[in-house]
């Protein structure tokens, strides 16, 4: 770490200009080409040797030792105490609003009471518009027949977010105030965010068992990074002049923090909270794998029954809950801001309205404790008919596009995936390792050298080199597809407002809808292949990349574009010669995000025929005697992610 930091020390002011750029004789791409050609030549007569392949149901001594070690860790006094405490809290809220405690046939507060309270809270922290949104969302949970699962998800999410804030906010303040803390904590956050959710699930499963404790711990681990990062940034970002001005009044550090920095950063902090809630919701389905309470369970059982429609409905309800939380926190942050600035709504009138409406809320709560109709949501057949409709549409689409889709699949599989995999995975390990290391250093520069050595070395040490190369192949191909989409749609949206209006909501949906929902139709189209896994990760990764490219291109100053157009260039020239080169920073960022998003889907790929590391992780969760191999696979994914991220980021900084 220290070497990397020293190497990258910024140039002292007044020093001679760096000479590297001017005197370098050979451009970088020549070195890349050279490495690739050498790789291919050596590969052509060593292929198939030393590939260190470990087959799906085989494992090495290292894996066995790891497994014994992990199983020894499980269920110690501390983790049991944490799990019990979480169970008590979750069960308390479940008995209150979701799960009846027999012989009572309904929870303590029925649906009518919950809807009334939630609506009132919506108005209290935000606006009446939000109150309407909250009421509609809650009614939808019940009307579509998922009242109990929705309430469970609500409980798990809110409890987890509360814990995440309790842990995350002090850390945020710390990294906001101290640069050194930031350098210590940031790599940990990186790791938490690169780790695929399934890998969390496995570690947490070994330590905390199944059910609500697992769901909460997983969710907290996944939801802490956004709040630490964003809130920490907000606190650090308070303008130096403001701090200086208040310092001159002789305040203490604590006063400065609570009276100046936190209030000034309030908007950013609430944004962090918002991201934390969305991160918590995105793990809902994975938590369903270990009986975590919530809407993940119906989505997963739809997957076992091959019933796309039945998974779509709860999947969309998760999205709805996400929208509800997102809009509510955003509106709440806007309201606190306008309130501190003495905004136009009259606080006295507001207080009266809140007080008066409390009466019908209390009545609704009382009534929902008394009458069965107000306690348990009345059932109806709506969900099944929606699901059947969705299935019919999906079948029609699949039948229509199947021939075309299959030729595309074959083109990519035979033309790109198989040759690339043959080079990466059939090379002897030492050849692939050396070549990847060389490419990492050439592309990322000296800054990428140390992380590359460490990551690739550890991957080899974990005994799953061959599987990791197969995953790398799929990741590269998927990222290529993502970037093609990002360029086409990103540029189109940036240049055409109307296209943007139509496409952006689709992207939002693609980003929020759980992957397990669209896995079923993709599987029906392409069968159990690596291509199915690739398409699933493209659907997941493309929206973020498209948005980044679009914003980058749009950010190019209109004056520059104008200047170019006046010289009479074509649209094509305008895009390729001006807009894309000027937006280079965003393009690299989009590629990086694309790669990491794709990698996050590797384990899910293991469920649909992609095999390799994803399969190892899932196999490890199910078979006690293969837990060590699962852990090794999980770490290999994380290391591969860090390797790719560091190289691309270093390249971006050099280019930037």
């Amino acid at each position: 770490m220290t070497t990397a930091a020293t190497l990258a020390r910024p140039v002292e002011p007044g020093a001679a200009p760096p000479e590297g750029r001017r005197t370098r004789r050979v451009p970088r791409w020549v070195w890349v080409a050279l490495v690739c050609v050498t790789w291919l030549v050596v590969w052509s007569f060593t292929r198939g040797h030393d590939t260190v392949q470990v087959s799906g149901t085989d494992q090495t001594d290292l894996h066995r030792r790891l497994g014994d070690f992990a199983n020894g860790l499980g269920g110690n006094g501390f983790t049991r105490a944490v799990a019990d405490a979480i169970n008590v809290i979750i069960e308390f809220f479940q008995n209150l609003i979701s799960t009846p405690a027999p012989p009572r046939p309904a929870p303590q507060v029925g649906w009518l009471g919950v809807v009334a309270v939630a609506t009132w809270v919506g108005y209290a922290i935000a606006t009446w518009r939000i109150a309407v949104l909250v009421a509609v969302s809650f009614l939808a949970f019940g009307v579509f027949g998922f009242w109990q699962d929705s309430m469970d998800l609500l409980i798990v999410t809110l409890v987890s977010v509360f814990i995440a804030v309790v842990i995350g906010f002090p850390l945020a303040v710390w990294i906001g105030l101290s640069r050194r803390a930031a350098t210590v904590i940031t790599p940990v956050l990186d790791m938490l965010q690169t780790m695929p959710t399934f890998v969390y699930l496995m570690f947490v499963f070994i330590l905390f068992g199944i059910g609500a404790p697992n769901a909460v711990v997983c969710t907290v681990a996944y939801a802490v990074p956004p709040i630490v990062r964003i809130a920490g940034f907000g606190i650090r970002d308070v303008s130096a002049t403001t701090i200086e001005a208040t310092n001159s009044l002789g305040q203490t550090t604590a006063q400065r923090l609570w009276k100046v920095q936190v209030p000034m950063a309030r908007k950013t902090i609430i944004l962090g909270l918002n991201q934390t809630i969305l991160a918590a919701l995105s793990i809902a389905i994975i938590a369903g794998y270990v009986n975590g309470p919530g809407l993940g369970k119906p989505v997963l059982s739809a997957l076992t029954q091959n019933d796309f429609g039945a998974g779509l409905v709860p999947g969309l309800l998760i999205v709805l809950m996400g929208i509800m939380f997102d809009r509510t926190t955003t509106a709440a942050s806007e309201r606190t801001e306008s309130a501190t600035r003495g905004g136009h709504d009259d606080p006295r009138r507001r207080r009266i309205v809140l007080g008066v409406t409390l009466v019908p809320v209390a009545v609704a709560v009382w009534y929902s404790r008394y009458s069965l109709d107000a306690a348990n949501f009345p059932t109806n057949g709506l969900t099944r008919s929606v699901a059947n409709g969705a299935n019919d549409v999906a079948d029609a689409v699949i039948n229509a596009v199947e021939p075309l889709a299959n030729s595309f699949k074959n083109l990519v599989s035979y033309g790109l995936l198989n040759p690339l995999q043959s080079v990466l995975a059939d090379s002897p390990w030492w050849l692939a390792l050396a070549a990847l290391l060389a490419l990492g250093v050439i592309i990322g520069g000296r800054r990428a050298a140390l992380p590359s050595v460490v990551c690739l070395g550890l991957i080899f040490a974990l005994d799953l080199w061959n599987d990791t190369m197969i995953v790398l192949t799929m990741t590269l191909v998927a990222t290529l597809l993502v970037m093609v989409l990002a360029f086409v749609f990103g540029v189109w949206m940036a240049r055409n407002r109307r296209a943007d209006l139509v496409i952006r909501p689709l992207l939002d949906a693609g980003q929020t809808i759980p992957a397990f929902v669209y896995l079923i139709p993709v599987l029906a189209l392409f069968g159990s292949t690596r291509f199915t896994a690739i398409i699933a990760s493209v659907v997941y990764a493309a929206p973020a990349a498209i948005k980044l490219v679009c914003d980058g291109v749009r950010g190019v100053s209109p004056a520059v574009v104008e200047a170019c157009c006046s010289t009479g260039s074509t649209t094509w020239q305008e895009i390729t010669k001006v807009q894309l080169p000027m937006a280079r920073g965003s393009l690299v960022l989009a590629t990086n995000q694309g790669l990491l998003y794709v990698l996050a889907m590797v384990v899910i790929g293991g469920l649909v025929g992609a095999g390799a590391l994803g399969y190892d992780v899932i196999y490890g969760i199910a078979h006690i005697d293969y837990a060590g191999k699962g852990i090794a696979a999980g770490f290999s994914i994380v290391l591969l992610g860090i390797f790719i991220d560091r190289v691309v980021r270093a390249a971006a900084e050099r280019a930037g």
Partner: protein
Amino acid sequence: MGLAAVLVSAALALTACGSGSVGEQTKKNEAQQNAAGGKCGDLKIIVNNWVGYTADAYVLGNVAKDKLGCNVSYVELKEGGPSYQALASGDGDVILEEWSHAAELEQATAKGTAKEIDPLGVVGIIGWYVPDWLAKAHPDILDWKNLNKYADKFKTSESGDKGQFLGADPNYTQYDEAIVKNLGLNFKVVFSGGETASVAAFEKAQQKKQWLIGYFYEPQYLHAVVKLDRVKLPPYKEGCDKDKAKVACDYAETTIKKVASTKFMDSDSTAPDLVNNFKISNDEQNLIAKYITIDKMTPDAAAQKWIADNGDKVDSWLQG
């Protein structure tokens, strides 16, 4: 305040003509429990992710709920490790279909957290299957000795220059890679990744007359819809699957076990006897699974339909 008063009186009026009160239902539930000869309390049935298992679980759950007044919950978990952990921690009471997690069962029995109880009555058959059209077109394919002859036909984008063998969900018991290697077959095992994927593949192969060979099993509802034929492997002999890396024989026919938490079985609830007596056959399970997947009934509705049609069977479990 006027608005509130109106709401209160409206609410009171509703209560007066309301359909049923929570208090009345609570009393009814208590009475039912007493009638069943004791308290049942919680029954937490572990549900693994295949449809046949869902069918078993919801039949047992509905009987326990309606006849014994149990508070039934379904703990949805992956088989093997997670399920056994649930038995140990008290998050689950019973695994209804234990196919073959010998390592986990042994460990749990040794620790005293779980024990095997009376079998489910289902006989599990795992094997290599091909779609029926293929067996009809090339009858000799049903013997493993002829498989290499056809290996080329089974090639896909995933299998390189070998034939593709479709492996199973990572959670299932399987050693196809070893069998392929030890029998010298020119096939590559490509893991489907899940039951959904395997079912979809066999369905499509039969419909579109595609070449497909893979891991499948009975009981499974797909057999009611698509006919599959089993490929003969060298017959199973006691112990030939002991070393997973050296297997060169067919899968054993398995008597599906029920495994329950020791603490649950020793409790004074009325549920353990029912759980122990609960029995179902391959055909019965396939029928209920078909209600769920083909007729798109909810698991609850499918179970209730079957229970209504099979009253005497249900009574026999209750009398034990």
